[in-house]
């Protein structure tokens, strides 16, 4: 907590109609008298060079270190109002006031009250925040840990090394290469997409071995991971019982995948015949054959006909099957069919597909190439494979619309990828009393990959089907464990080309994480935030809510059960702050007081004034922008609303609600992002937490004998530009119905 005396300067803008709609000099007085601003100035065009200059002068002169901007929204003119070495608070007089109110005489008074309150609130915030400074806890460690020596891991290592960073590469097996080393050839990912191409795995392995920045740990695994971005301590144990400890700044988990076991689909009779092989087993046969004819395992006879059965146990809800689709099986089948065709054009190769998944430019060209080699593609669903000297595949031909069968020397089963992830920490709900990673709901290896010494389990959380969590649209590298990134098929099924792309991206994120950890800057989404959770140990009751509810497992517990905050794991969402029943957690620029005081500083008209007050706590990421855009489009809402943006609804501490009710607010609305499987909360669990907590508010209301309708929580999307104002107005109507709060003093 930096100590310096705060010098508040409030700068009001009279532009954009603010001056016409509001009595600015009155707001100046408000800022001085109620807001306790030492300096109060008004400019007719505050975001202009001149206006900004006016502010900067005062800062440079040392007259002001806490700036209150009374102008447009927090989201507007951000670049103009960015001052280093000063705390910034904003009173949203434009989008938050005049734009959502009619320009009429009747409306004038309530609009003015709104404006004055916004000034009071911004000043209150300013009084209760501090200029954040790095804790000094952070370290810059330019080494990455890469777990997994397959193509993904090796690519991560090489790309990071190329960027000038050191890498500790840990591989379970005695040699590098992973599955890639077992392949005969690869699917082409460069024009022309016509023939299988060499894996060049040896070259890659050689490059890894040769690179000065890369340290190899073979036959090794991660026995323990402690610390946080910038200061991870990794214990690497080898099969031979030796172990070393390395310190790294960030981690990339490239633990890859396992092949689905075809025996989960008995009708394929994989176990009943040596000539019924999986696609991965065929790679071995092809490798053994070199560029000569591929031989049957059973009798060593040259294969003259082969059938590829696609989607074995994939995209199926049947028990023991994979509910998802690996997506690359058809490309692999074409590649493997070409193993035969390029070697013996006369070899009959049939691919029984359902939906031929050969997407993109590469995919479609490769499909054509397969056809060009006279690979027969039949849209057919195989029901059973009969073992024998000549194998028979029974299937339904979807085009000829008939049940039929075909014989072949060899049958290749397209089996999918199963992610090789560690146990999901959240397979069972976490409870406050300590419990290590529970049994995952999906059948993946139970061995931990990372052995994190974290309060919330040993490994990266899963999203679905055993794949590690990721906001898999806008921010694919989000993992809920800061500074630890998953790459390759452990994250989602993918081919080698995509995995290498993914590896390079993950390396970028890991490098970014360690660089920012070194500067004490927060990672996405509050990129660059220098604040961090501060904690008053004396007050702590060791309830452990914070350690359990942090979506990013940033908080551990010491032996006495007190929370241990790890600054560089923290995303600054404030969910711990919202969780804390005794309010001992805060941030320099965001705290129970910095919001609580805004709530309290709203001027509360007495009961008979017929002027209710509605507190709106809106997520700054979605709900608040929605209200902004409503204003932009001239959509009005109740003048009695007082909107406060919060970092995440999860950061809302129930004390704000009770305080608000006690101080006479008539209604409270919480607006957060949608929760559940398709959550849109940028802190993953925030809005869900808020819902849980608010469900308990009902009791409080009862104690205060207040109607439940006075406090409501909504999921509001950024596109709810019409809806968000409607929700506020609905509350205003409710209050008209049920009457004003009795708690006005």
């Amino acid at each position, binding site marked *: 907590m930096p100590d310096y005396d705060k010098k508040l300067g409030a700068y009001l803008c009279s532009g954009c109609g603010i001056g016409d709609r509001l009595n600015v000099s009155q707001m100046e007085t408000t800022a001085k008298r109620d807001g306790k601003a030492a300096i109060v100035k008004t400019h007719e065009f505050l975001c202009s060079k001149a206006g900004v200059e006016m502010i900067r002068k005062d800062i440079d002169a040392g007259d002001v270190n806490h700036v209150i901007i009374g102008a447009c929204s927090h989201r507007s003119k951000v670049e103009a109002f960015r001052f280093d070495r000063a705390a910034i608070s904003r009173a949203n007089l434009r989008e938050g006031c005049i734009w959502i109110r009619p320009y009429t005489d009747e409306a004038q008074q309530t609009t003015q009250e709104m404006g004055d309150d916004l000034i009071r609130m911004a000043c209150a915030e300013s009084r209760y925040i501090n200029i954040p400074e790095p804790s000094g806890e952070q370290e810059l460690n330019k080494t990455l840990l890469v777990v997994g020596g397959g193509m993904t891991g090796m690519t991560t290592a090489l790309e990071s090394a190329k960027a*000038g960073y050191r890498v500790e590469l840990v591989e379970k097996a005695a040699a590098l290469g992973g599955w890639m080393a077992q392949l005969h050839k690869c699917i082409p990912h460069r024009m022309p997409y016509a023939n299988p191409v060499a894996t060049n795995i040896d070259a890659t392995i050689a490059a890894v071995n040769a690179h000065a920045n890369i340290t190899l740990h073979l036959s090794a695994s991660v026995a323990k991971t402690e610390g946080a971005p910038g200061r991870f301590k990794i214990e690497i144990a080898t099969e031979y019982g030796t172990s070393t400890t390395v310190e790294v700044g960030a981690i990339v988990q490239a633990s890859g995948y396992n092949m689905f076991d075809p025996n989960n689909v008995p009708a394929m009779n994989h176990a009943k015949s040596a000539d019924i092989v999986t696609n991965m087993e065929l790679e071995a046969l092809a490798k053994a054959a070199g560029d000569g004819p591929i031989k049957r395992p059973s009798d060593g006879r040259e294969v003259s006909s082969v059938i590829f059965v696609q989607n074995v146990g994939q995209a199926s809800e049947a028990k023991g099957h994979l509910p998802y689709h690996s997506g690359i099986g058809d490309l692999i089948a074409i590649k493997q069919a070409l193993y035969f065709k390029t070697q013996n054009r006369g070899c009959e190769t049939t691919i029984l597909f359902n939906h031929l998944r050969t997407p993109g430019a590469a995919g479609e060209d490769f499909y054509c190439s397969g056809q060009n080699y006279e690979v027969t593609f039949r849209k057919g669903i195989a029901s059973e494979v009969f073992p024998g000297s000549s194998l028979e595949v029974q299937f339904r031909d979807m085009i000829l619309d008939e049940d039929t069968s075909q014989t072949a020397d060899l049958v290749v089963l397209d089996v999918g990828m199963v992610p090789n992830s560690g146990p999901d920490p959240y397979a069972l709900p976490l409870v406050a009393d300590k419990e290590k990673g529970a049994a995952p709901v999906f059948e993946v290896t139970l061995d931990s990959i990372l052995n994190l010494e974290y309060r919330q389990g040993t490994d990266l959380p899963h999203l679905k089907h055993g794949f590690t969590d990721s906001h898999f649209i806008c921010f*694919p590298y989000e993992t809920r464990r800061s500074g630890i990134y998953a790459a390759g098929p452990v994250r*989602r099924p993918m081919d080698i080309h995509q995995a290498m792309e993914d590896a390079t991206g993950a390396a970028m994120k890991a490098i970014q994480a360690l660089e920012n950890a070194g500067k004490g800057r927060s990672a996405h989404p509050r990129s660059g935030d220098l604040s961090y959770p501060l904690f008053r140990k004396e007050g702590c009751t060791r309830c452990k809510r914070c350690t359990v509810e942090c979506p990013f497992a940033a908080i551990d517990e010491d032996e006495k059960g007190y929370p241990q905050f790890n600054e560089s794991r923290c995303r600054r969402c404030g969910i711990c702050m919202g969780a804390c029943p005794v309010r001992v957690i805060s941030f320099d620029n965001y705290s129970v007081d910095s919001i609580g005081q805004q709530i309290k500083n709203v001027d509360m008209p007495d009961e008979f004034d017929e002027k209710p007050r509605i507190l709106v706590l809106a997520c700054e990421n979605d709900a608040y922008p929605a209200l902004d855009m409503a204003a932009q489009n001239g959509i009005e809402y109740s003048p009695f609303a007082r909107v406060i943006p919060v970092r995440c609804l999860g950061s809302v501490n129930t004390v704000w609600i009770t305080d608000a009710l006690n101080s006479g607010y008539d209604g409270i609305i919480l607006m957060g992002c949608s929760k559940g499987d*398709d959550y849109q909360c940028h802190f993953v669990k925030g809005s869900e937490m808020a819902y849980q907590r608010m469900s308990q508010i009902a009791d409080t209301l009862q104690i205060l004998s207040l109607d439940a309708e006075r406090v409501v929580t909504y999921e509001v999307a950024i596109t709810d530009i019409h809806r968000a104002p409607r929700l506020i107005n609905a509350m205003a109507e409710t209050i008209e119905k049920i009457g004003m709060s009795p708690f006005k003093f």
Partner: protein
Amino acid sequence: MTEVVATNHTILVVGAGISGITAAVEAAETGNNVVLVEKRPYLGGRVSQLYKYFPKLCFPSCGLEINQRRLSAQGGISILTMAEVTAVSGSEGNYSATVKISPRFVNENCTACGACGDVVEAEFDNEHNYGLNKRKGAYLPYNMAKPQRYVIDPRIIGTDDAEKAKAACKYAAIDLDMQEQTIEFKAGAIIWATGWQPYDANKIQPYGYDRYANVITSVEFERMMDKFGPTGGKILRPSDNAEAKDIAFIQCAGSRDRNHLKHCSRICCMATLKQSTYITEQYGVDDADAKGTIYYIDIRSIDRFEDFYRKVQNDPKISFIRSKVANIVQDKDQNPILNGVDTEGYHRYENRHDLVVLAIGMEPSVNKDSFPLEIVINEHGFIEADEANGGIFAAGCASDALDVNRAVQTATAAALRAVQVVNRVAGSEG
């Protein structure tokens, strides 16, 4: 006069769609200096024109809000809009880029108060809505436009409208004498993220997009769903503005076709599955007339997207026909009638629908013939990763037909490749 501070440690990012923005923020948040160049007057590219993302059915503007905030939070990024890279010279670690900046006729003073828009009368096709409606000659491209500054359409320059707009502005933000300018600056590495454009549906003659009002493209359909879009969020037939309830989706419209784009555009299957959910969203589950029919060759629902495919398959309102539609005619009420054959068992159909949505193909916006520098571009128009490209790296749909997730993946990877170059430069300079 726009100026850019750049050295050969600078990373130039061309195109500010989801890929360009991602590449820029990832590089900048790692402490690099970035120049982000965008042709449009605003950032966000195609995703800013999408209603929802598959498979979460969440809103692109949600992620865009975060990314735009990340851009503003970074000191190290300079953004040029209405700007195009016209020439690039030099080599890896030492490029010099020439950028042409078209006049916006509105300067930084703009507070987006909207006064100019109110007074201007001239209207033009709204590009953001693919011309489905009009916008003023002085306009804010859309709600979340960044920079949040108005644009004066060059076509009103010299008219009274222009003068009216100027007069209406209290902040001297409108500068009608603004000229096109060309600037040149250095860069160590270049990320090419110019994205894609919808294939020209007029060329798909059998489907009569050029002749039948009620045949639209998938990108237009996205705009219809936007509450601030051309139809205020309603699915309306262009011919008579009646609610369209029986909707056909035609897959591979311009993709997987030697007569058009040879490649598979990858996203269309999922995009259509997503759009099929709009029908229930709009009309509810109980409206028996509301239904969708998907005409497809293969549904390429890769990996986890399979869950989503299954979800749609279980929706009684949606049916699937395995068929490339042969052609479309329209009846007297301008209802499109689709002719073709269901290839699963060979059943001929002649199906009438209210509206046809063409799942339009994805064409790379890489100018194959006049790329500013010698670089490897494949026959489909995508930039290939190649040593010969030196310090120029493709991101997103300039490299392949990709969905948002994979575009972001490649963009993040491209960012590292660029960082490698500038770090090498820094290293060599000691």
